[in-house]
């Protein structure tokens, strides 16, 4: 090889640029000296090193010049090249960084690669890591549309020769690049504007547009420390604001793209660069790296405010360009390859998280099979599938999957029923509801939409914005999620999968899970799914001083999701805080460690109250409406009584014979000497809270009747406590029982196991048979007939027999022409007394004035939903003031005889005019002075503007907003959403802050060890 190299026709001049590279320089110099194809001439330049670099050069007898520290790499190379004698034919310059050591054969291999390829004017070696020399850094380089440096390699890719060969590339790194001198000089060398970073890509691009080729010759190898990029030395070059390499890199990336791309691509590129800079900045902020975030934005900013620099660069490039810039398009990575690369990376992370034990278990089995030499001679029976299905977790999930599928046979479609109202088709509808300040529910409401609506909308991203599908899937996969999360926790309590799997299975078919799914309880489902993670992370609740603040905020973040769905979790957490603080106070009496207990209190208070703050304004409104602390999303349908509740059933569906052994397990565990006892104490405490909750009657969420509170969220935690206690009990008890003689513990354990198994079998059987007839069903017919939704700005008093307990009772609500949707119950206003009286009058026949009252509130129709008692229909018929307009299978409709509308204008002479109105606001002309009444709930945000002035607003005798109009003219009615927008902004700030505090912080490159880098 060496002999062949000596025979080649080339002259090679190595150009070594040094800057504070004393750490790597000795090895670099040695590498240059040991090349199998000797370098013809070597010249170095030092850019103001303050270390021993120049001394090392001197001792190596390499001729060098020195220059100032702010001179860029390209400029330094040009200075060396200019100092060289006239260019000879076939003269090449070999660019060497002071942190890049070429392998002995590198130069020989590079020359061999270019020898038969006259079109190639730039060739580079395969770059490997300096410390880990199997780590593949680059084999050619390009630039993505968003400015990212694109190598086409995976992170920390191991070099196994998988990319070997000579490849045509856009560019190669200047570290070890061999460039034909004549071309280098012809196209002006490296751009002096690119003092560091991306000068290689820029040069390669220019070489390509000048009609030449660039080659990555992977037989040539060099080891590169990437000292500047990895922040191993200070970047002093001109333009490196605040010595920040990232800032310089991003600026230069944008410069390269904008200077070299076709002009018609520039607008799109600018947008792309800005967008990706903002996205990356957000990412860095989340990783608590504000400096990097600033670099991203500053880099683009500094470039775009000086467009003349780009224009000048483009002019220069135009001079040397022989072919179109589009020639490089083949080397620019398409967007899909970036996405694929990113998703592959993500999948790899997930795979390594999910199957982290896979390799180790396989390895151990291989070793075991080789232990006996005879086994080597025996043909291996490969029965992977059978073994796969015999794994307890697979069996458990499969059985639960089948049960869930059978149980969900009536719930495959748009779900509605029970506590769950119909989900809007698109996530945008949910976002709209979340942001809007006025809700067209009943007589109208300005209540704050709870945060869970935003979470459902956010979750709909998984179903491409189809919120309805997301909710259906959530209900479908909930049992599996619940089992999976429980298993995550139980694996920490026992190594025995044959205990943890059945226990998590029981959690997934516990009464509270079955009831929550059947009655459409979103909050309970979310809590059941996430509670194991909360319990897992909050296990050090009693010695919380040892938990880091970041973890405290992580728990607070998780609890924020719980609070968003139901503030009952706040009540539980608050009770927990009070109980533990009292306990600490008692301990403090003995230990007198004020600092310790103060520290504990601070952290616990943060866990309990930070999520409350994150959920403003909904949580603040709850202080004024305390019933909100005991409700969960959707319609307030009654929960179970106290007795069923303490047996773990919050009510809804389960037959009386299906009794879970939760209470029994907790009572038995109380007498255990293991940690099961502590868990049982928590469980019993939670069941006591559940009993109290279930004894409370509340009126909330658009239901003014007194309804039993649903204790599902509390029972979810109690059930988890029972499952954990049972797991620990069984795990610890088993060895004891095996070794001891038969006594009462054996009988008690047998009884516990028996009742648990009986429950498991009965619950499974119930689930797949009558359990499928849940309150929540798919694709149910709507309540409101379509013809009532034709008119706009319509209010209809709907009467319907609703089942309450075991009785049916006529109840009413004001419809806006259609059924309610998901979040409506949460923001529904309380009943208006006058309307309630009018409705009563309709039903008992005493309502002679009902029609007038309804007209006063803008209610145009009365709709009695079938089936309803004939007597009620006849009573309304006989009342007067109502004209029956239709009778269909859906029900009977009467028109209120007194004309009415949403906007009623009464002129000064008493003439009533019903004005056209939009869904919320209105813009119309008034013929004269008078009084305008809006038949919506009074709210301070209703504003009527005329000639730019707000008109005086007051309440009329019905409590409706009324405006005094002094003159004729155009008016605008609006509901001012400034306050709502303000609250949401505050909430977003709180949430993002909590998110940033909770997420693990990123590391700067200088904080990453050499070993990790390469």
């Amino acid at each position: 090889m060496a002999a062949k190299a000596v025979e080649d026709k080339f002259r090679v001049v190595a150009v070594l640029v040094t800057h504070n590279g004393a750490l790597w320089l000795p090895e670099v110099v040695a590498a240059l000296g040991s090349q199998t194809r000797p370098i013809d001439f070597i010249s170095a330049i030092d850019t103001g090193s303050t270390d021993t670099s120049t001394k090392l050069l001197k001792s190596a007898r390499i001729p060098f010049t020195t220059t100032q520290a702010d001179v860029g790499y390209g400029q330094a190379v040009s200075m060396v090249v200019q100092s060289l004698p006239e260019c000879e034919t076939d003269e090449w310059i070999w660019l060497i960084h002071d942190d890049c050591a070429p392998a002995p054969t590198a130069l020989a291999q590079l020359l061999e690669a270019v020898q038969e390829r006259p079109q190639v004017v730039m060739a580079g070696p395969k770059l490997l890591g300096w410390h880990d020399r199997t780590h593949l850094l680059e084999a050619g380089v390009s630039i993505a549309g968003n400015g990212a440096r694109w190598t086409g390699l995976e992170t920390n890719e191991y070099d196994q020769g998988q990319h070997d060969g000579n490849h045509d590339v856009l560019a190669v790194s200047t570290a070890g690049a061999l460039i034909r001198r004549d071309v280098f000089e012809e196209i002006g060398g490296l751009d002096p504007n690119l003092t560091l970073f991306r000068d290689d890509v820029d040069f390669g691009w220019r070489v390509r547009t000048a009609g030449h080729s660039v080659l990555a010759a992977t037989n040539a190898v060099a080891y590169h420390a990437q000292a500047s990029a990895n922040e191993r030395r200070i970047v002093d070059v001109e333009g490196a604001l605040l010595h920040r390499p990232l800032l310089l890199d991003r600026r230069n990336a944008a410069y390269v793209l904008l200077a070299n791309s076709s002009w018609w691509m520039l607008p799109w590129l600018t947008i792309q660069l800005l967008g990706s800079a903002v996205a990356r900045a957000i990412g860095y902020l989340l990783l608590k790296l504000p400096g990097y975030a600033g670099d991203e934005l500053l880099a683009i900013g500094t470039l775009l405010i000086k467009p003349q620099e780009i224009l000048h660069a483009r002019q220069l490039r135009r001079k040397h360009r022989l072919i179109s810039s589009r020639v490089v398009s083949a080397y620019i990575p398409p967007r899909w390859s970036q996405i694929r690369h990113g998703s592959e990376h993500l999948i790899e992370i997930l795979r390594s998280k999910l199957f982290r034990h896979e390799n180790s278990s396989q390895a151990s089995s291989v070793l075991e099979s080789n232990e006996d030499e005879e086994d080597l001679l025996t043909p291996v029976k490969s029965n992977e599938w059978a073994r796969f299905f015999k794994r307890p977790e697979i069996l458990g999930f499969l059985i639960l999957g089948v049960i869930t599928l059978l149980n969900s046979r009536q719930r495959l479609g748009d779900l509605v029923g029970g506590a769950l109202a119909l989900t809007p088709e698109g996530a945008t509808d949910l976002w709209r509801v979340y942001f809007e300040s006025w809700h067209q529910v009943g007589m109208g409401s300005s209540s704050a939409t709870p945060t869970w609506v935003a979470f459902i909308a956010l979750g709909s991203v998984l179903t491409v914005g189809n919120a309805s599908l997301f909710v259906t899937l959530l209900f479908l996969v909930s049992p599996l999620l619940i089992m999976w999360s429980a298993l995550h926790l139980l694996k920490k309590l026992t190594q025995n999968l044959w205990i943890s799997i059945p226990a998590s299975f029981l959690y997934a078919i516990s009464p509270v899970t079955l009831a929550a799914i059947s009655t459409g309880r979103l909050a309970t489902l979310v809590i059941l799914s996430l509670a194991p993670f909360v319990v897992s992370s909050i296990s050090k609740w009693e010695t919380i001083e040892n938990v880091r603040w970041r973890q405290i905020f992580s728990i607070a973040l998780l609890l924020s999701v719980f609070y968003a769905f139901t503030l009952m979790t706040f009540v539980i957490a608050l009770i927990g805080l009070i109980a533990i603080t009292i306990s600490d106070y008692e301990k403090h009496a003995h230990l007198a460690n004020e600092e310790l207990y103060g520290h504990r209190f601070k952290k616990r208070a943060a866990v309990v109250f930070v999520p409350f703050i994150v959920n403003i304004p909904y949580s603040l409104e709850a202080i004024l409406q305390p019933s909100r602390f005991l409700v969960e999303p959707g319609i307030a349908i009654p929960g179970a009584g106290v007795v069923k509740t303490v047996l773990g059933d919050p009510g809804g569906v389960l037959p009386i014979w299906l009794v879970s052994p939760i209470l029994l397990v907790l009572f038995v565990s109380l007498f255990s000497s293991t940690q099961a006892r502590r868990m049982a104490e928590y469980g019993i405490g939670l069941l006591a809270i559940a009993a109290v909750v279930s004894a409370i009657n509340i009126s909330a969420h658009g239901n003014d009747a007194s309804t039993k509170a649903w204790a599902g969220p509390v029972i979810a935690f109690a059930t988890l406590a029972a499952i954990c206690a049972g797991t620990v009990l069984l795990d610890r008890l088993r060895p004891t029982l095996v070794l001891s003689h038969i006594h009462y513990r054996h009988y008690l354990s047998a009884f516990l196991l028996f009742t648990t198994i009986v429950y498991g079998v009965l619950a499974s059987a119930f689930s797949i048979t009558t359990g499928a007839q849940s309150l929540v069903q798919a694709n149910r017919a709507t309540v409101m007939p379509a013809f009532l939704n034709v008119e706009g700005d319509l209010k209809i008093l709907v009467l319907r027999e609703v089942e309450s307990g075991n009785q049916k009772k006529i109840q009413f609500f004001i419809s806006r022409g259609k059924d309610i949707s998901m979040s409506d119950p949460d923001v529904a206003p309380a009943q208006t007394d006058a309307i309630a009286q009018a409705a009563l009058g309709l039903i008992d026949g005493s309502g002679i004035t009902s029609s007038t009252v309804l007209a006063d509130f803008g209610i145009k129709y009365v709709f009695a939903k079938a089936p309803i008692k004939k007597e009620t229909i006849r009573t309304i018929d006989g009342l007067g003031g109502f004209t029956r307009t239709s009778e269909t299978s859906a029900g009977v409709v009467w028109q209120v005889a007194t004309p009415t509308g949403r906007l009623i204008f009464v002129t000064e002479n008493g003439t009533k005019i019903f004005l056209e109105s939009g869904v919320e606001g209105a813009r119309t002309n008034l013929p004269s002075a008078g009084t305008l009444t809006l038949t919506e709930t009074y709210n301070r945000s209703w504003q009527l503007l005329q000639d730019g002035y707000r008109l005086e607003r007051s309440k009329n005798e019905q409590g409706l907003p009324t405006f005094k109009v002094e003159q004729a003219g155009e008016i605008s009615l609006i509901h001012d959403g400034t306050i709502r927008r303000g609250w949401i902004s505050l909430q977003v700030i709180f949430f993002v802050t909590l998110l940033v505090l909770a997420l693990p912080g990123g590391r700067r490159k200088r904080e990453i060890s050499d070993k990790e880098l390469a």
Partner: protein
Amino acid sequence: MKLTRPIQFITIFLIVFGLANLVDATTTSKTYTESFPAVVCSPTLAGLSSQISLSSTKTPFQRLQDKSAKTSPVKVLRLPVIADSLVISSETTTPVIWQSRAGRWGGAALCRGPVASQWFVGASADVTTRGRLVVINSGLSDSIVDIQAFSENGKQQLQTITVKAKNYSVIPVDTFAPGDQALALLVEPQSGRVNSFMIDEQGQGLRSLGGDLVNSVSGANKTLVIPAIPTQKPARGQTKSQNHVIRVLAPGQVDADVTVEVLSETGVFIPVGLDSRLIEAGRVTEFKLEPDVSSEVFAIRIKSTEPIVAAVKSRISASGKSDYLWSTPSPELSELTMAITGLSPLVVFAGDQINVSIDLKLVNGKTVSKSVVGNDIATWRPPSSARSITITKVKKGSYAGAIVTSVNGIGYFPFAIGSELAKIEIPDSNIQVLNP
């Protein structure tokens, strides 16, 4: 192992559980509104006169066609009605209207609250008839009423009429099945607060053959008891007492097999030919009832394999005048109050074992208690000074009706509640109404 802590936990839990249960039990409550809908009495048509018996002079009433909702106290215990139908808030008491054509006939009927359906078994549509159906709408909106007639020729064309708010319609009964002799009408309001009354009046040329107010029943049943059918001793020179005619209709699709039992002082028996008699579905069937009973009244119990409606027509002659009455089935007797001022009816109780406690209120305000005990049938005539009868206690399976005689004729009314207590749970605003 220390047991103190677990036992403490269990004790606290049990205390909380007990208290929660206690709170749960005490907070369960429901709120209702209770009212007795006002009853409506038949209007006085031309040539007729009416009096309504009431139990209190303070009973509020208003004329049907009054536009105002204001009521006035009746001030008297027997209120003559000039023309209009009256709406009376009589609460628990059922007023009785006595209507008559001077010197020709008399009849009684209950004033009732609005009902879902009314069956009238009586009247005919042949040349002798002068009968009319009065449909009253006491509501404030127009009402639509379906009238389905049946005759010996089967089911007739359904007729639907509209009655204006606070008004009534008078329809000649011969329009329902012209020429047919035996009628049964079902009045079913589709909408509105509707009551109906039927006046059955017959004549031949200028000669009156009598008349009656036909009481209605709310629906067909498999067992009917008609508690008061008057008898008349054979006239001098005659051997047989007068005939009774049973009119029966099985309104369903299946023929009915009926058996008629007679309950009289002489015992319970099935007259010859009235055991297991086939009644064709949808056709009004009449057959004679000639029981050999010596008492002045008897009762019948009709048992059927299918739901039926029925009535018995009895003709009574006195002082050269002839009148008839329609005895209709009575519902099982329950606690109720009937206003009988000025009627001095003969009250007839029927049932296997009769044991009825009665409070009798006299016009002077005094209350007298009375018990009626017997088997099969028992009669009792309250004094003429009685204003109301209150049944305070009654043995199950008892029925009662009353026969009223006056100078103009004879009438019948069943003992039944005119206005049922409407107990309505106060509705709440509940958004669940709008969720499928």
